[in-house]
């Protein structure tokens, strides 16, 4: 069993006994078998000395218990690693950043405190999952729509605090951006509420997020400055209907014009999440063999146009949902077609039937693309599960490499090219091509994504890690970074945000030292080390 740093077995046993006095013996997990349940299932360090392993886990049921645990941890200087539902797969799961940390498992704190479908918000605890919240909304016939990430077993709070993302309207897809009001247990055990929640007796906690003075909410996302125990979530009123539509453009060079127009629509709040694809390039998950075209390096524009012409398919497409009253949807769709036709020669349009919302319960299981309607599900696991192409050697997990690119065609193409170079340099076939398309999880940025497999095999993981790190290095050379990553890569990822000799991280660590003098909350998370552990860096 791992021990917390600078802690003897005897001291640790005393701390565990004190934890038990707070939560009960059933909710302190310290046997090897129980602690193993807090491993990162998708760890790129699985089974290696560097794998991040907890020393124990403690699972409180209330804010008061969290406060008591924090005070005990301060007395023993034992690091705590809070998790919500612990399903942050790809980004560390339930495992701590620092080996020997005690995982503070908040899954038992799973109360849905309030959902209001007139002021359109929810107030939840950390252990509530998207499945739980959706079920509650349905059972109470509340007319609001969630915005969900891919796996529905995650926590609205945890996902937001890791800058997670979803699939509906832009303001709601950015989950931290759509939180409203936090309750936080500080690193010293003090209870804090932000926004209007700081006013005793306020009924506007989930209506007004600033309060007066500096907003500190951002300090608690992807960080280690405190433990969030309640969070408000802005919810979209249930639209009357939705309609899925697609725009295609014929030429390779049309991508910039397509992006310009989609940006206009997205930033005007007229459309749901734009979903880009390349019919000529073979689609998102069925890439056309571009081998012949790519044999002599990255093709030039003329070669790419000729390739598109030979495929006899549109170069690019973008699909999106229109939400709202039927009259608005039809009017918006008419205007969208006019705008694209005016700007891009050969733009073509497809539309599906209009459907009323909410979707009836019986129709949900067979509904495609549930996440675009805020319906939690697990169907994204198709991307990494055993399939006919990997049947002989399916991966055990994945480490997602998300390159944040500017919303331009050049940004997408440059990121795709650099990632392809990284793959080739590390001996892997490229996973990106001139036909790679952006993902629009964030309304104001593009994501160019590659999924790198992880394994319960150290040799294979070493190759995957080297590839991941090469990708991070290469995208930084063109001024790009990533937004979220596994603890194994967090230091490298934040090191790329190095403007003015790393002034940002230096500032964050000054805050860390002031807020958490004993360094007990998630040391090392996203590269932020407390003063007493700063030599752990690297």
């Amino acid at each position, binding site marked *: 069993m791992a021990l917390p740093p600078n802690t003897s077995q005897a001291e640790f046993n005393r701390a565990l006994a004190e934890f038990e006095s707070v939560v009960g013996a059933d909710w302190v997990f310290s046997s090897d078998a129980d602690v193993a349940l807090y491993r990162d299932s998708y760890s790129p360090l699985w089974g290696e000395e560097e794998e991040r392993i907890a020393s124990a886990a403690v699972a409180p049921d209330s804010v008061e218990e969290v406060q008591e645990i924090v005070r005990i941890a301060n007395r023993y200087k034992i690091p705590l690693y809070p998790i919500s539902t612990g399903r942050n797969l790809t980004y560390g799961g*339930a495992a701590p950043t620092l080996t020997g940390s005690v995982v503070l498992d908040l899954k038992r704190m799973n109360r849905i405190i309030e959902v209001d479908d007139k002021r359109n918000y929810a107030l939840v605890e950390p252990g509530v999952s998207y499945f739980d919240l959706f079920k509650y909304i349905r059972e109470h016939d509340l007319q609001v729509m969630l915005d969900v990430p891919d796996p529905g077993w995650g926590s609205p709070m945890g996902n937001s605090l890791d800058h997670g993302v979803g699939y509906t309207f832009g303001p709601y897809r950015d989950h931290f951006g759509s939180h409203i009001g936090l309750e936080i247990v500080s690193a010293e055990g003090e209870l804090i509420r932000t926004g209007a929640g700081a006013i005793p007796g306020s009924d506007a906690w989930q209506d007004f997020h600033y309060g007066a003075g500096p907003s500190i909410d951002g300090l608690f996302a992807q960080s280690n400055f405190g433990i969030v125990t309640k969070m408000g979530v802005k919810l979209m009123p249930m639209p009357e209907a939705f309609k899925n539509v697609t725009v295609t453009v014929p030429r390779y060079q049309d991508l910039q014009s397509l992006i310009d127009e989609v940006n206009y629509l997205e930033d005007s709040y007229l459309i749901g999440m734009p979903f880009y694809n390349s019919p000529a390039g073979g689609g998102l998950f069925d890439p056309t063999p571009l081998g012949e075209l790519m044999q002599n390096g990255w093709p030039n524009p003329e070669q790419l146009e000729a390739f598109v012409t030979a495929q006899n398919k549109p170069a690019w497409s973008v699909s999106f949902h229109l939400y709202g009253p039927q009259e608005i949807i039809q009017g918006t769709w008419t205007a969208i077609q006019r705008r694209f036709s005016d700007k891009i020669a050969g733009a073509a349009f497809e539309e599906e039937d209009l459907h009323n919302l909410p979707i009836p319960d019986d129709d949900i299981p067979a*509904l495609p693309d549930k996440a675009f309607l805020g319906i939690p*599900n697990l169907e994204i696991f198709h991307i990494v599960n055993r399939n006919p192409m990997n049947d002989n050697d399916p991966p055990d997990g994945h480490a997602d490499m998300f390159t944040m690119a500017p919303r331009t065609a050049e940004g997408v193409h440059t990121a795709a090219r650099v990632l392809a170079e990284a793959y080739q340099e590390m001996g892997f076939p490229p996973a990106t091509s001139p036909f790679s398309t952006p993902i629009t999880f964030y309304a104001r940025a593009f994501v160019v994504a590659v999924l790198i497999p992880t394994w319960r095999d150290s040799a294979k993981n070493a190759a995957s890690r080297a590839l991941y790190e090469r990708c991070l290095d290469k995208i930084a050379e063109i001024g790009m970074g990533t937004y979220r990553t596994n603890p194994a890569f967090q230091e490298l990822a934040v090191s790329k945000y190095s403007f003015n000799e790393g002034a940002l991280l230096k500032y964050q660590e000054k805050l860390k030292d002031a807020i958490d003098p004993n360094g007990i909350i998630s040391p090392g998370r996203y590269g932020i080390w407390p003063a007493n552990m700063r030599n752990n860096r690297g």
Partner: protein
Amino acid sequence: MNKLSILCLFLVSSIGVAEAQELSPAEASGKVVFDKWCEPCHGRVAGGVFGGLGTNALPGTSALMVKYKGDLPPVLEDRIDLQPIYISTVVRGGLYGMPISRKTEISDADLQNIIAYLNRPR
């Protein structure tokens, strides 16, 4: 309420009672836990994502279709060969893309009930 409505209500109630009586309390509890934690990946009906990926089956079911190639049913609830030790090993240890489940999510009692449900007499 007309006679037809009463008849329908009676039939629905009867079916509900009949189904409940088929499962022991442990098996019935196991089905509730299974439906929450396992069914979204290992159930029968899938919608698919991103323009057709996985429209034929949910991800866990689809993976087992590929793995067993018809030799065993891909839907776990149709299996009659799942040994308790195998179920607990996979739930607690994960397998390929399926992650580990902790005791704060699926308690030991829940796990025993899942095992009872998947091994129910048929």
